[in-house]
């Protein structure tokens, strides 16, 4: 088990290094004009050259990357080229907003999709039709269009929620709740429709397995078969779906944050990439990849725990 975790973490680190280098390499092409952009049009040629030296832009790519990587390993991700704010601080102030939103949404999706998917698979009939139709409708409306509809309807027309929230990290829980409810709903609606459909097929597949019939023949109550055996066997599929949705959401939240004017990581990603603020971009990419690696590791661990074949070896 320990070996399994170590192997997964090692694989994650390799991926992290590969992506860091690739991103750094890509961004290298964008950095030619950066010093001029920072200083403005009226800066003299010498000032620009001096700035470039200061930022290390005069160094060759491998040297720049190694310098950055060396500092990053010690936890020093540098400072924003434009604001001078340390990258770690910039991310730390925005991370709670994005993570609260995404985690709340994924938990709600997990619960709702399981309940709806199970009900559709077991009861069939109208609830099955609702889930199946919902999956198509959910696929058909892009998440951010749905978010725009929600804002227009509930925030601008009905004024039930603040349309543009400006939540500070130290604002009260009610301010957070008011600002995050609508964006979370937008994320949840999109995730639940697809998720419920996947849970439904996974549960139906399990219900058709031979061992379910044998359990029934042994006199085990139907409820216990469903919740203990079928749900457990369907869980790996559900978890994989959830982890993919989570990863998708880390991207989707970028647009959602823009629509709801939330100062989260997505917002930072847009800002930093538009300006070419390489330290910040690298910070955002690293943070995202680390979260993805952690989520995948968690899913592997839970699946391993659910599956005795993996657990024993």
């Amino acid at each position, binding site marked *: 088990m320990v070996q399994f975790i170590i192997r997964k973490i090692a694989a994650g680190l390799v*991926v992290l290094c590969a*992506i860091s280098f690739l*991103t750094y390499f*890509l*961004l290298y*092409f*964008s950095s030619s004009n950066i010093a001029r952009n920072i200083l403005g049009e009226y800066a003299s040629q010498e000032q620009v050259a001096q700035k470039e030296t200061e930022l290390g832009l005069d160094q060759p790519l491998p040297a720049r990357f190694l310098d950055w990587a060396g500092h990053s390993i010690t936890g020093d991700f540098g400072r924003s080229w434009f604001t001078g704010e340390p990258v770690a601080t910039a991310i730390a102030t925005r991370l709670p907003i994005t993570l609260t939103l995404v985690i709340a949404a994924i938990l709600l999706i997990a619960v709702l999709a399981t309940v709806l998917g199970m009900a559709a698979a077991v009861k069939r009939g109208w609830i099955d039709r609702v889930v199946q139709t919902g999956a*198509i409708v959910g*696929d*058909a*409306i*892009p*998440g*951010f*269009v749905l978010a*725009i*509809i929600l*804002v*227009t309807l509930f925030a*601008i027309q009905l004024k039930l929620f603040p349309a543009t929230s400006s939540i500070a990290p130290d604002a009260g829980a009610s301010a957070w709740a008011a600002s995050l409810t609508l964006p979370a709903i937008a994320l949840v609606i999109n995730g639940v429709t697809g998720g419920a459909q996947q849970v439904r097929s996974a549960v139906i597949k399990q219900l058709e*397995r*031979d*061992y379910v*019939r*044998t*359990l*029934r*023949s*042994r*006199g*085990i*109550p139907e409820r*216990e078969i469903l919740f203990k*055996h079928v749900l*457990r*066997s369907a869980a790996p599929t559900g978890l994989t779906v959830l982890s993919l949705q989570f*990863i*998708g959401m*880390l*991207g*989707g939240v*970028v*647009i959602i944050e*823009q*629509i709801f004017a939330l100062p989260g990581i997505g917002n930072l990603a*847009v800002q*930093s*990439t*538009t300006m*070419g603020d390489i330290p910040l*971009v690298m910070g*955002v*990419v690293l943070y*995202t*990849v680390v979260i*993805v690696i952690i989520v995948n590791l968690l899913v592997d661990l839970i699946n391993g725990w*659910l599956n*005795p*074949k993996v657990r*024993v070896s």
Partner: protein
Amino acid sequence: MSQAVELTGQTGVVVRSHVIHKVLRNPMGLIALAILAVLVTMAVLADVLAPFDENFADIASTLAAPDANHLLGTDSVGRDVWSRLVFGARTTLLSALLCAAVAIGIGLPAGLVAGYYGGKFDGIAGWFVNILMSLPGIIVLLTVRAAFGPSVWISMIAFGILLSPGYFRLTRTSVQSVRNELYVDAARVAGLSDRSIISRHIFSVVRAPIIIQTAMVCGVAISVQSGLEFLGLGDPTVATWGVMLSEGFKNVYLTPTLLLWPAVAIGLAVGALVLLGNAVRDALEDGEKVKQRKRKAAESASATERTTPAPAKVRQARGAVAAVESGTEHHLVKVTNLGVGYPQADGSIKKVVDDVSFHVDRGEILGIVGESGSGKSQTAFSILGLLPGTARIVGGSIQFDGNYTVAPGEEKVSQERLTKLRGKRISYIPQEPMSNLDPAFTIGYQLVTPMVRVLGISKAEATKRAMKLLSDVGIANPERTFQAYPHEVSGGMAQRVLIAGAISCEPDLIIADEPTTALDVTVQADVLDLIRDLQRRLNVGVILVTHNFGVVSDLCDRVVVMQNGRLVEEGPVRTILREPKDPYTQMLLSSMLEGKEPMTMLVSASAKEAVK
């Protein structure tokens, strides 16, 4: 009346034109294609349909309401909304196509090679796929934009690369499943080159899933591309729906309709693609369903007559039940004129068990013999009440220990009545030992829980009994097996465990469905001995479903022979073995291997070597 359906089934292989036909007949598919056709027309004829240039700004009339000049009004700098919408269709559709093309261009060949040849390339490709799949798309696209500037096309190429794992996985799995098919082996033996095998046999398999995937990918591409444009990260000189959406969102308090049109356009385009994908999938699955039904029908051949439910016939059968019923209470199980059927798409019911009657007494072993598809397992499952959800009892009755479990005229087995009997008084030994144990729970758990639930005894008590049962069924080390997971024991061992489970609650009737078929020959004899032993010791009734007369002669007291859902012969096992009356029974008996001359080798050993 059901001829037409039969014929569509017989066309067998799903032809592509067939699928297109079905998609067109599906209202959803038709609507989707119509919407896409309109959008494509808009994109192609944009120069004709748009009265203004996409960037022509009439500063005199900004945010204007629709009029004769500006069909849908103007935006905040006075650009014509209709013209921009039409030009936006062009950019949007082209970018979606580019994205799909890149994704296919990378994913398909890589998937073909990885699936067909496997090996190192498969490993490396798998690693890349895992990386690509664990990247949040939009963050990557933002980075790409930072590196290469705000071009729709570069974004879509990058997004295509990000989506290529979808095609890779799809192709790889399809190819892997086909690669080992016999007809591909045959093609290889026949000397076809890898390239022609791939293009002829494998390409035809992946074609349909790829069409579905492409519809979905185009939909995703459109929404992501619009999303990026909405963020204001696109090229401002190109009119796209996303840019229009962003422009509308900024003016949402002044002119909400600016938001409406691009949102509708995006919704329609993505929705149509998703619907199209679904329609194609439905059309393909429909084809498969017909094929499957065809196969089942072929298995059970002529007896599975397709009949619309005939009330007269059912009533007649019921009448017969009433006459036989009295004085049969002493039988452990009595099946009377049982009919089981499955409703078909055309409204008829396909019978798989037809007018079957027999009985079993305590301490007796009854064999039900027949080929696969003869309805013997369906009969057994009706007694257990474990028929698939779609099955219907179309006639007859089943009684257990003097009470009906299926009363005459009932359509379904009453689960309420059977829940009280299953496990406690009727138990079941399945055919395939491994798939009948839940892989996620220990063998001990799966033995103990039924006893706790059914007999109401404590866990400790049940554990003690489980240990005893395990040693009773001849397992040498009960503790170890008790703690093992199903995948840790052999098939023979698992079957012993299932038999232990079947007798754990001291039932009166055991239904064994081909209990030895999946086992090695040496284990088969052991398991049969075990069943005979237990039956004598516990004095239970046993229904043994099998296709093997050897097993029957070894074990059974009486035997019924079934063919194509009907009962053809019944009697004491000696009588049937010595003087079979029905030609089908005679045929079954003559196909037994026991007591036959060994056959001579068709090809001599040296010739075999030469072939190799």
